[in-house]
């Protein structure tokens, strides 16, 4: 049974199938390699700084400059961009060949695949990377001369790996970037390496990501075996031409998207692999902002978008993506509601928002997912960076119960107001960027037909309300209300004067970056209203343009005026898109007002509510479970880690006692044991020796006489 992109229509999820144009090889654009080279150079220079124990801010400057260079190069590449894109070969990596056919060769090189999707990603990655590096140059000040260079080296590694991931022209280089960002994240989460929790979190992040990587690796194998190539351009033309290995058609076509999904869920912290992301907050806050909110965690969305045609070949896979995304969004939001650590709340909100993005991918709107990635990158960066500023100023204090009224404090106004901007966007407050990008996904959940997609849509709407609630819970608690604070336990040298704690407000670099990104978060709504350049039938403005020339083009929204067959669904009697503007706005406001009631106007009510719930058996488990993250970590520990650990000990014991002790040493002991048995023969008495000898002779002679066939009379004749 042949399945192809065209076969999708049968399954009811209609997508237009447009043949793709050929991508050209453009060696003359090899200056684009600077995007990857500059972070590498900065890595080396940071390494030199670390080795020379430089005590100035040089590493930050170098890194910021390098990343800015990368950003400029990316923009220049965008300006030079001609659809449908280019492949820019940089360096040979692996080329094996043992025959004529495509299946008798394997090749994966360092080459850049430039299309609009990769450009979209690389631009916001490098742009935000630059800004956050500048922010970090101030944030990391206390570590000057200690881990400062190491930190920025890590950032450089991350940007390099992320560049590889986004720009690669084949799955293997993507894999390199994929593991590379995982490693960078390990590096940076474990930055405070003397804190055991940070080391454990780093380890957890790497290992959980490895599980996803396993999926990616197997997917790469399967893709190569099935299609004979791992390069995107070839892969796409193979798919177009239905020119793959027929014997692999059935199961491998089904398996590929699920394996890719595993990878994407690992990297983008979806169920069931999301557990590492909240722990990753052990890293310095700029890292959380850059890697664990804005950029790296969106790699999963990028992967799915990049390999979208493979997902389209197996419709069930996209349905799974949608459901996993939706459920993750809800689950993480419920956990986020019950946390007190503002960074963790943001972390769960990231998981939740990533869930939205996967929901978008699953309901066939790569556009919505990409747009949400874009807006989320800005507003979540703002939120994290403000959290970081607070943490920085209050000696690591992150408990929202111990901070209050920040907006009234001197020097903290910019922090408070930029945080408000971030919160508004996250909560989907009408006419903020988050509002538009979220709606693009929500609406599509009602439009696209799939198993229970409507329920999924309602789940997403409820989640939107919860999001608004927990977001403003943070803001109202921390920034509004009366001024009150307790310092955290990470006192720096300059913090305490005469035994009294003075929070030190952020200075120029932090404030400047906060402002810039906050403005960016607001402006992220603008692309929605831009005209479509590539195809006037499309809706969605610039972002849709950026998805249009890529492999993810099948998930683009058709124009609003264009009432084609796909848009027949209605919600509350309205066109879903139109309806969603109202519904999500209202839901957001409801969440916001709950937050305002419980955390701004009558904070005591919140405690009363919590007490009330905890005392009721029928509902008491809920807040507890939410606070304990639905016991997912414990479940993993009990179901996976502990059994494996026990198995490890069993294997070790087996190795020591059975294989080595019993089999090896036992065999080695055998000759000695045998010798001990035979020792009585050597009693030393001449008669017994003689007896043994004569007995031996007799036995041999008798045995021969009995068992050999003698012709007795044949002797003397």
């Amino acid at each position, binding site marked *: 049974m042949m399945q192809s992109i065209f076969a999708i229509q049968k399954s009811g999820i209609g997508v237009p199938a447009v043949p793709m144009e050929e991508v050209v090889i453009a060696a003359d654009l090899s200056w684009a390699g600077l995007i990857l080279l500059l972070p590498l150079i900065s890595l080396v220079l940071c390494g030199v700084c670390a080795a020379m124990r430089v005590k100035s801010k040089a590493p930050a400057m170098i890194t910021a400059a390098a990343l800015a260079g990368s950003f400029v190069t990316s923009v220049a590449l965008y300006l030079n961009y001609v659809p449908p894109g280019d492949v820019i070969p940089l*360096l*040979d*990596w*692996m*080329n*094996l060949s*043992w*025959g004529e*056919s495509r*299946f*008798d060769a*394997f090749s994966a090189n360092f080459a850049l695949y430039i299309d609009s999707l990769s450009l979209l990603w690389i631009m916001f990655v490098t742009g935000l990377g630059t800004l956050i590096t500048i922010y970090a140059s101030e944030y990391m000040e206390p570590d000057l001369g200690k881990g400062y260079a190491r930190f920025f080296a890590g950032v450089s590694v991350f940007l390099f790996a992320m560049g590889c991931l986004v720009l690669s022209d084949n799955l*293997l280089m993507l*894999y*390199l970037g*994929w*593991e*590379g960002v995982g*490693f960078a994240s*390990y590096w940076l989460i*474990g930055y405070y*390496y*003397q804190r*055991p929790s940070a*080391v*454990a979190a*780093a*380890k957890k992040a*790497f*290992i959980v990501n*490895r*599980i996803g*990587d*396993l999926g990616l*690796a*197997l997917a*790469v*194998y*399967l893709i*190569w*075996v099935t299609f004979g190539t791992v390069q995107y351009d070839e892969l796409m033309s193979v798919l177009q031409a239905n020119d793959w*290995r027929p*014997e*692999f058609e059935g199961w491998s076509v089904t398996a590929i998207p699920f394996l890719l999904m595993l990878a994407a869920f690992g990297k983008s912290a979806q169920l069931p692999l999301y557990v590492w992301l909240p722990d990753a907050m052990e890293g310095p806050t700029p890292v959380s902002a850059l890697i664990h909110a804005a950029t790296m965690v969106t790699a999963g969305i990028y992967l799915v978008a990049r390999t979208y045609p493979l997902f389209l070949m197996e419709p069930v896979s996209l349905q799974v993506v949608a459901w996993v995304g939706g459920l993750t969004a809800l689950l993480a939001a419920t956990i986020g509601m019950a946390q007190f650590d503002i960074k963790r709340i943001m972390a769960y909100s990231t998981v939740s928002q990533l869930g939205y993005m996967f929901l978008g991918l699953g309901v066939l709107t790569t556009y919505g997912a990409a747009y949400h990635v874009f807006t989320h990158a800005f507003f979540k960066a703002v939120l994290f960076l403000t959290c970081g500023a607070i943490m920085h100023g209050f000696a690591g204090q992150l408990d929202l119960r111990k901070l209050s009224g920040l907006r009234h404090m001197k020097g903290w106004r910019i922090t408070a107001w930029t945080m408000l901007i971030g919160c508004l966007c996250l909560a989907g407050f009408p006419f903020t960027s988050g509002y538009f990008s979220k709606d693009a996904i929500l609406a599509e959940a009602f439009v696209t037909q799939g198993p229970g997609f409507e329920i999924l849509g309602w789940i997403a709407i409820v989640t939107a309300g919860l999001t608004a609630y927990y977001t403003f819970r943070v803001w109202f608690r921390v920034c509004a209300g009366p001024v009150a604070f307790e310092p955290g336990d990470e006192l720096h040298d300059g913090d305490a004067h005469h035994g009294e704690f003075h929070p030190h407000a952020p200075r120029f670099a932090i404030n400047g970056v906060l402002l810039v990104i906050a403005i960016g978060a607001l402006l992220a709504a603008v692309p929605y209203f831009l005209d479509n350049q590539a195809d006037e039938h499309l809706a969605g403005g610039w972002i849709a343009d950026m998805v249009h020339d890529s492999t993810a083009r099948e998930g683009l929204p058709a124009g609003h005026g264009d009432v084609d067959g796909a848009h027949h669904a209605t919600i509350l009697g309205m066109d879903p898109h139109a309806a969603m503007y109202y519904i999500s706005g209202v839901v957001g406001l409801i969440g916001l007002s709950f937050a305002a009631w419980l955390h701004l106007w009558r904070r005591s009510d919140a405690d009363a509510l919590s007490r009330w719930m905890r005392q009721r058996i029928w509902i008491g488990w809920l807040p507890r479970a939410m606070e304990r993250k639905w016991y997912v970590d414990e479940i993993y520990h009990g179901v996976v880690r502990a059994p*494996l*650990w026990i*198995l*490890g*000990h069993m*294997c*070790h014991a087996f*190795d020591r006692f059975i*294989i*080595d002790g019993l*089999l*090896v040493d036992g065999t*080695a002991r055998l000759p000695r044991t045998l010798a001990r048995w035979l020792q009585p023969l050597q009693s030393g008495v001449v008669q017994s020796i003689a007896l043994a000898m004569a007995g031996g002779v007799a036995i041999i002679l008798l045995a021969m006489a009995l068992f050999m066939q003698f012709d007795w009379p044949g002797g003397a004749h």
Partner: protein
Amino acid sequence: MFALLLLVIPILTAVAVLFVPERTIRTCAFLGSLVAAGVAILAAISFGGWGNGGWGLEYSTPLLPLYGIHLSLGVDSVALLLVLLTAGLMPLAILGSWSGIQHRIREYYTWLLVLSAAMTGVFLARDLLVFYVCFEFTLVPMYFLIAIYGSSNRAWASLKFFIYTFLGSLLALAGLLYVAWAAASHLGEWTFSIPALSDFASAGLTSTEQTWILAALLAGFAVKIPLFPVHTWLPLAHTEAPTAGSVILAGVLLKLGTYGIYRFVLPMVPAAVVEWAPFLAVLAIIGILYAALICWVQTDVKKLVAYSSVSHLGFCVLGLLALNPLGMQGSVLYMINHGLSTGALFFLIGMMYERYHTRDMGQIGGLARVMPVWSFFMVFFVLASVGLPGLNGFVSEFLCLMGTFAAGSTGAYPGLLGPWFAAVAALGMIFAAMYLLIMVGKVVFGPVREPANERGPLPADLNLREIIVLVPLAVGCVYLGVQPDVAMHAMEGAIRDTLAIYPDLAGSVHDMLASTGAEP
């Protein structure tokens, strides 16, 4: 002539070391090994077989013409790569034991150099008996290195190492002699030339004979690799061996086993290999996972790395058994990569041990603060070992698994392994990350814990000599990670030659599968 030089220079240096004044021993040994490395590089430059298969650097003189035994040397590109690895590791091993070995240094360097000659001889051999003599002789220097310079349990470890591998190789010898005899009775005259015997055996032996010979050869090579379940000598030997001994053991000696499979098992008994590949692959996979799980619960760092060798070499065997160029090139590359990264890990552990006299993860921790340079290298090589893309381990591991995954789907090559084998084996990637990162997390990161006993005379962090030991390995790791093509193109022809007999067997494999009702 290069071949003879490669063999003779270490021996001459060893003899020289026996007689030079006490103070110049190390220098002499180091220079000798450098010269050997230089000659190896010259040999590599002059070698004409890069990429296109065939033998080079040939040298032959009769030893026992009655039995057709010749001192016949020569390399194909795979062997030459391993010769380069050996010659390259040797100066580092000598440099690395500069301060670690304080007594009986004359013998120490003699043994080290003799060992290098023997290992080189294994890779250079083109005659069965030359191979066997060198293969066997590697035991002696290694035995002494462990028995004289090892830790507390050295006597038992060296004995076990010796007898275990000796027994295995004697059985392999029996198998090889059988092949030689079968060839002699078929050809009418004795020959011990490896190519001639391979040509004969692959076609001239029945499948029953091939199966038995496979068993005999594996008795020798599987112990050396070591393959589960004959691996238990290795952790013991590694824990007891001195640093350079461990480095050489992991770096080169284990590769003698996989090289033996490459050189003898695959070309000589193809039918048996095809038939038994799944079984052996299962053993390799059990080894990968089993050893990885054991690594997880180790507290002795060196033992952990030793078990990780068992796990890693499982991938290498899997790649060989994939019976296609992908897996095999990955596997050969793996041999080199494992030599670099695990060798370096043993160096690092040795350097730690020299300072703290313990390898117990429970006693030691947070060294990143005390020894940042050491920690940098530790993390670097652990990552190379974990298989981080961009470093060397990744490429080979990836190709081994890919070859396994694609076995049977790569052109005309037969293969009974397949996706499931690769999928299960790939779990080893996760486990590797787990145990190695746990180790790093304990030893390098976390709060500082140092054992009570005072430091040795060494400075807290690595000195220049130690850095010089590690840097070439690190450079090698990066280079092979970024430019694996250089090595892979180099070995391409030789591997194609080795596999050339397999496509003919594809038909019989399908018949076999049809008869057993299995599906490819």
